[in-house]
């Protein structure tokens, strides 16, 4: 087993875990954490691809590395924006649920059915 195999399996597992967390946790903050976990797994995919492409004296293909650095920064901005939205929602509404009961429940049928 090489590093590529070990971490490749881990990356896939992290993606699975992140997806599960993103779907099932009800709290938005936990969703954001799960998204970051998911993101780290996806970035590791790039790392593994790059590691396999080690050549010309580099242990890791520099192109995927650069893509990951860009991706990490984008993911961080997304986290910051999501957190800001969440905190503002909490400030205004006093709760952070994503389901608004008023708007979400199917309205009673006005034609009497």
């Amino acid at each position, binding site marked *: 087993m090489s590093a590529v195999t070990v971490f490749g399996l881990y990356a896939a597992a992290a*993606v699975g875990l992140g997806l599960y967390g993103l*779907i099932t946790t009800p709290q938005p903050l936990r969703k954001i954490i799960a998204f970051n976990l998911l993101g780290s797994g996806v970035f590791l995919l790039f790392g593994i691809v790059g590691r396999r492409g080690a050549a010309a004296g580099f242990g890791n293909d520099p*192109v995927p590395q650069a893509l990951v650095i*860009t991706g990490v920064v984008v993911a961080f901005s997304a986290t910051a924006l999501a957190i800001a939205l969440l905190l503002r929602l909490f400030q205004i509404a006093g709760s952070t649920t994503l389901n*608004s009961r008023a708007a979400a429940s*199917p309205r009673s049928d006005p034609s009497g*059915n």
Partner: protein
Amino acid sequence: MLPPAPALVTTAGGFLLVLSIVAPVAGVLLEFALGERYVRPVVSTVIPVGLAIAAAVLVLLPRSDGHLVYLLGAWPPPLGVALRADGLSAVMLATTAVVICAVAIFAATDFRPQSVEARTPFAFWILLLAIWGALNTIFVAGDLFTLYVALELLTFAAVPLVSLDGRAETLRAALRYLLFALLGSVFYLMGTALLYGLYGTLDIVLLSHRVSAEPGALIAAALMTSGLLAKTALFPLHLWLPPAHAGAPAAASAILSGLVVKGSFFIVVRLWFYVLPALPGFTAAQFLATLGAGAILVGSIVALRQERLKLLVAYSTLAQIGYLFLLFPLALDASGRLETGQALAGGLIQAISHATAKAAMFMAVGSIYAGLGHDRITGISGAARALPLSVMTFALAGFALMGIQPGGASLAKELLLQETARTGQWWWAGVLQVGGMFTAAYVVLVLAHALSPPDRPVALAARPPRGSGLAALALALCSLFLGLLPWEPYLPIPYALESKLFGVEALVKLLVTVLGGVALAILLSPWPHPLAGTVARRDLKTVPGPFRRACLGFGSLVERGDHVLRQWPAAGICMLAVALLLAASMFGAN
């Protein structure tokens, strides 16, 4: 070494592609740095420049063999990044420029810069230009990772637009939108990682030569497609769309509904037709179109049951997005490969027609909301007299969407119908016709309410500014006359089509659509019918009571189903299921 392929050399005029990105981005930076007082000069410089660039691309493209290429930093792919424009890019660039221009005029009063810097104008104008820059990048990017960055740029510009008014409801909508869009981008990113690992490049042209039906490539294709579908809000991945598009301010809704969802749709088209045309195959294409058909059905039925006009229009966007995805199975050739032919042209014209018409529609609804102080569909009787311009805009945009000649939608429908006949997929012809009827249904429904005489004189809360109304009207007219434009240099359209657009046969088709729409509106809308006293009474009589009740029951069932699908866990599970089913059907085809 072989001489470089034509797609890997900068062409004359390629710099226009750079400018089409740089102009809005520079506008964003200037607005941010200079602040409120200079927003007006910056915007009113950037918009004409952007329009001119789009026009120049349109002019230059046919003269340079249908392709413009620019190598950024003069580095050829795979190491460098190329920008490329073809006919599709050119028409989308132009559409975006026109819609942005109209929305900017519409918003000039709503978001008028004040002497003291205020929050909403500051954010709105920056985000408007940012969306423009992001979309232009999407249309001309020649590299899958550049497309990823552009997608994120689009999301980051679109999300704050949703929550501009700062109410809890819209904040919630924005957060849902952001989280689901991020899930979509992560899926897309997974696919790019796999593709780079297999082929060592992310350049679209190079990839299209190297790609083959290996397991990794198929999984990558499925992941990327489902991620993009989430961002496009194709049924059943639409949980974020209705609240976001209905909650945003009118000008923002126009952009979100008209343009933003087209960005990720465009990338799906790029991916399927230009990166891996041989991979998806028959089943996957049918699957996409089936989701599209589901979107038409659910979106339209739920739209007809909405009480609020903005939500109705938002749900109709959902249905129209579904309509766009019908192009995929129709573009298959005999060997199961996607052909860049008539079906693609039809789908793209439909997208353009929807972009213009839906933006106009949202602006009209925004004006009605502002004028009446509410947008309850049962309370808009008399609006046609009080706000004639807005109602007329809504009507014209609606006519364009339901396929009245010479609108873009009618041309698109004709192109797609011909392809159903050619490929023998008659079932999609039925879906296309029903889709048109449903569109007619909600347009007719709204117009019937707006045209009916009011119980008491309508008191206007505010009079919408004339400039705004005219901008929306101009956009609706654009959509209505799209069918007359010369598309041949940009999209593969047969010459002989125009004659079919007019004439008795076309008129009959239209009549059938409208009558079908009226019937659907009567059967599925739960609201008391405004014209019950006049024309529609006879119709109502002929419709047996129990039948209408059954239809309404069915509608309510669909609405409930839609509500379940819009819960977060359900939508997430749908997302994974769509990805897996796509992968399975692609594996089946190869």
